[in-house]
């Protein structure tokens, strides 16, 4: 029952917000709802046994309204619950047009995301998967920057194309189920699909997730979309939506078509590693700081995809840890970028410089976030990426080597960008720059605490996902052959 409440809170609050005219009240209500939602989600960690909710829905199509979760979905739910209060707080002290609609749409997105992570059958998953796109589309279309009409359009069509293939895959699987057809994940995972079918079905299913994440070469929508998106939109996109792609792949590919996964394993890893190198190199050449972060995010996500496909214990642990760590870091990064843009009225690196002279506190916090992003030891990013590289190493030393390059390249371009923005002489064109306000601390300090907290003591997250990772490992162990044994 509690999962139903978690799903409905943002949705109902969103509907109510549409009736409220007072901007401050709207934002406060949205924040309150997201905080309550987070607390409820957090309580799921301690809820034994797992609470679920099932109701009849469309009987003649064998579809139930079934909600539930396991360790993997719980990580995703926690991430969503954790990030949305910050995403909403981002707009707290700022003037925004059409506030009630904006926050209603943000909460609708949240509800749809939660639905994706809670869905227990593929049909419900698909409906929520598509529903995330609609409010986000309007957030980008109505509050976006220059050229938003064409960019959002491209983003929309791009992701929907992938989704429709997923739909085909779901219906195909639906017809393979024995007896009265159904789309339950639990039934799907017991199908024993012939290997030849799995091999082509893999791409039908994977393409939707590959576009969302995005994996090279399906990434072309991403940089332009990030650039035009309003800060809150890009936080949702980079912080949570990309994880939705990862979640979908974990939910669909590994349990349902394990042979297909093993068959294409190396292809996908190589594609992701190409993505890692490619994104890092391009990030290095960017002069627009948002595009830089977009490509850096792509590099990190690509590494996570590679980790997903090496199919071993370390890499999966690292992946799920990195899901949390990347989400928190990227939201903090985009918040600081927004601050910089507000204070300097530019996003171009060559026009910035010497901001530290006038805003030392901002420089320090920015540095902490950057360090988290480049995976310095004692930050959450390090734990995740270290495990991922270990996992890659077990597959092939070359994979580990190329994967490891992200950390080096990441450090180079992020620190170089930091240097160009914050250090050096102040550019005369920049006016006086004010330092952080109290509101900014409220937002940044908790995020940075999480980044370092998880870096110093990561165990709780591992405990949380242990069971799910093990079950996934058990499933894939006989298939992948030379996997390392579980540490006892």
């Amino acid at each position, binding site marked *: 029952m509690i999962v139903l409440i978690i799903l409905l809170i943002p949705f109902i609050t969103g509907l109510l917000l549409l009736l409220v005219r007072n901007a401050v009240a709207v934002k406060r209500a949205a924040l309150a709802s997201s905080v309550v939602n987070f607390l409820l989600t957090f309580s799921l960690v301690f809820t034994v046994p797992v609470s679920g909710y099932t109701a009849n829905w469309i009987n003649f199509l064998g579809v139930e309204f079934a909600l539930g979760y396991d360790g993997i979905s719980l990580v995703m739910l926690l991430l969503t619950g954790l990030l949305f209060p910050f995403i909403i707080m981002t707009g707290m002290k700022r003037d925004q047009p059409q506030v009630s609609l904006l926050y209603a749409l943000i909460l609708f997105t949240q509800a749809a995301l939660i639905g994706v992570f809670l869905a227990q059958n593929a049909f419900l998953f698909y409906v929520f998967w598509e529903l995330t796109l609609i409010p986000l589309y309007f957030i980008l279309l109505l509050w976006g920057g220059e050229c938003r009409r064409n960019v959002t359009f491209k983003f*929309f069509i791009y992701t929907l194309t992938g989704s429709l293939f997923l739909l085909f895959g779901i219906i195909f699987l639906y*017809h393979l189920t024995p007896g009265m057809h159904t789309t339950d994940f639990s039934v799907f995972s017991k199908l024993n699909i012939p290997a030849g079918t799995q091999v082509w079905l893999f791409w039908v299913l994977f393409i939707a997730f590959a576009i969302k994440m995005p994996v090279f070469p399906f990434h072309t929508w991403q940089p332009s979309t990030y650039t035009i998106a309003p800060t809150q939109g890009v936080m949702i996109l980079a912080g949570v939506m990309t994880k939705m792609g990862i979640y979908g792949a974990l939910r669909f590919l590994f349990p349902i078509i394990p042979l297909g996964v093993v068959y294409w394993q190396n292809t996908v890893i190589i594609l992701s590693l190409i993505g890692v190198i490619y994104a890092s190199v391009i990030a290095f050449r960017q002069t627009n700081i948002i595009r830089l972060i977009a490509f850096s995010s792509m590099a990190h996500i690509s590494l996570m995809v590679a980790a997903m496909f090496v199919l071993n214990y370390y890499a999966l642990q690292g992946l799920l840890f990195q899901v949390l760590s990347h989400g928190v870091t990227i939201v903090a990064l985009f918040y600081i970028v927004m601050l910089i843009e507000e204070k300097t009225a530019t996003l171009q690196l060559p026009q910035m410089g010497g901001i530290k002279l006038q805003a030392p506190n901002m420089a320090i916090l920015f540095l902490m976030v950057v360090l988290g992003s480049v995976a310095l030891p004692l930050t959450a990013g390090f734990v995740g990426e270290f495990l991922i590289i270990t996992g890659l190493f077990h597959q092939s030393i070359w994979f580990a080597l190329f994967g490891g390059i992200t950390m080096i390249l990441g450090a180079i371009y992020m620190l170089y960008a930091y240097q160009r923005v914050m250090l050096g002489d102040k550019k005369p064109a920049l006016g006086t720059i004010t330092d952080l306000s109290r509101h900014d601390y409220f937002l940044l300090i908790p995020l940075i605490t999480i980044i370092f907290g998880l870096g110093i003591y990561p165990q709780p997250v591992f405990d949380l996902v242990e069971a799910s990772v093990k079950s996934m490992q058990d499933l894939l162990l006989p298939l992948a052959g030379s996997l390392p044994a579980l540490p006892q």
Partner: protein
Amino acid sequence: MSAIIVTTVLGIIILYLGLTKNKTILAPAAIAGLLVTLFLSAKEWGSGIGYYHNMVIFDNFSIAFNVSMITITILIFLFGIDYYKRMEFHVAEQYSLMIFALVGAFLMTSFSNLIMLFLGIEILSIPLYVLAGGKKFSFKSNEASFKYFMLGSFATAVFLFGIALVYGASATFYLPEIKTYIAQFHGDLPPMLLVGLLFIVIGVSFKVAVAPFHFWSPDVYEGSPTLVTAFMATVVKTAGFAAFYRLLGMGLLPLPVPLEKALWVMTGLSLLIGNLVALRQGNFKRLLAYSSIAHTGFIMLAMLSQHSTSASVILYYTFVYSLATVPLFIIFILVKRASNGLDQLSAFQGLYKKAPWLAVFMTILLMSMAGIPPTAGFMAKYQVFVLSISQGFLAISIFAILMAVVGIYYYFNVVREVFTDRDHLQDLVITRINAGLIIVCGIAVVAMGIFAWNLPI
């Protein structure tokens, strides 16, 4: 049967009411009459009575489609209250012609004899030829009427010829008897019968605008008065598909191989031409015309999947499609009036600024047309794909999915226009009835998506 009688009488009564020169009573009278028909039709559910030596049979299939068409006609008449306000003369004739067309539609859903199908198609078509030319002084309207009439009569001739050939071979007009006759050849049909069947199928295809027999539809849609276009796109289409399905289901299944091949080609072509040409349309009515050809392709896919639930899926699809199409035409007319008769997509610019709620409902309706959850359009397409994949038509299903993406592209092109800033819709006037219609249809489209149904027909 009582539905047919009541509707015919209603048409005549409306015609006489026109003599009173009081326009305001026409629509309410017509709607009241249709409500009676609706009730009478629904009452016969489950009885399955045949009339005239079983030449027409009112089984559940025909009743379900009749009820759906009557509902849509009521919606269109409600729209007519505002639409015909500016028209001085011959308003009664417009209403009664549509009612007569509806009688033809009833016959098309319930025939079991080819002669009845022919009568139904003619009773449906002849009023439409007149209605298409409803704007007497508009060049385009005249063109539409003339084109529709010429091509329509040509198709009818082909259709009649087909009936004659089939009769020549099988010596019967009754579909069940034709079915037994076909069955004895075990798929190897004599040429005369095959050509006859093909001609019959072509005749019906013309009515529902399946490619490559679609050339009339964009011009006719564009030139006809918008209300008539809405009627053609919804009621006529539904009737055409009901007839098509009945023809196949009652008489021709399992399909002879050459015929099936021809139908598959037509399905593929409809999907391809409808969607791709729609991409290039700047005129909203032409866009909807081509997109309706594309929808035809999806419905054909459901029909050719030959499953016991096909009929229900077609009913759901056509009803949902009609339910979204009617309000879209209403919004189009409102916008067109406010922008000095501009009928391009750019007419919708600034709609969001002027009337945000209207923009939201327009988006919901377009989402339904494009097939995006949680709208009914999605459930309709989902069911079609479930059907086609269940029968193992994977390649064409993938193709249809790709075409659905193209569909999303041009529908959201319109959404994009709606949300573009511009100030030219200052004198947008929305009457209460129109607003109510749009809202009700929008909510219904979402509700039917969340609570999808199927009927045992």
